[in-house]
């Protein structure tokens, strides 16, 4: 690797790391401040963090993220949907059977999670149809 490449990489890496760290800090402050009883400060810090992250991306001269990064995100998203789907496909029917056998009592939080999973895959199905129609 040449000196130019090292300098180039170092600059890109600095911006990429700063961008990721800003997002991480924004989320940490958001949840942390809300958890300790400062919800407005949490939201305010989060908004500032997002603004800083977006400005970092805008101020960098070249492509900070490119098609390979998008592909990596897509693959990770595919795996997330698959893992989440398989986990739900095993968990909820099992809970239904256990409840029918009297070995499990369906609770409010389980219903909330089931609703969230249903909404998640409902949105996924809608987006699938939408994307398919466009292509």
């Amino acid at each position: 690797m040449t000196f130019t490449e090292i300098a180039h990489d170092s600059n890109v890496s600095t911006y990429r790391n700063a961008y990721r760290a800003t997002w991480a800090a924004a989320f940490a402050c958001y949840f942390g401040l809300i958890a300790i009883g400062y919800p407005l400060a949490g939201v305010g810090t989060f908004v500032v963090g997002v603004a800083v992250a977006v400005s970092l991306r805008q101020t960098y001269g070249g492509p900070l993220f490119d098609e390979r990064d998008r592909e990596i995100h897509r693959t990770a998203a595919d795996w997330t949907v698959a893992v989440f789907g398989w986990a739900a496909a095993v968990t909820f029917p099992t809970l239904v059977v256990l409840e029918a056998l009297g070995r499990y009592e369906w609770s409010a939080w389980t219903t909330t999670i089931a609703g969230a999973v249903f909404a998640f895959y409902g949105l996924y199905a809608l987006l699938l149809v939408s994307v398919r129609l466009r292509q």
Partner: protein
Amino acid sequence: MKNDLPDLREERSLSQADLADAVGVTRQTINAIERGRYDPSLELALKLGEFFDRPVEKIFRLDEE
């Protein structure tokens, strides 16, 4: 896919960073393509073909060829 990007770059004395800047991606992406770890999109492959003034199939080829 295999490709001739390292040779083409060398012929023109270009670094990976130079090529990355020319086609609008990061150096890491050029490096990943050269090492066969990432297959470029059709758009990027066409940009590379245009940059090197070669048809895409003269730069990239399937592994079994």
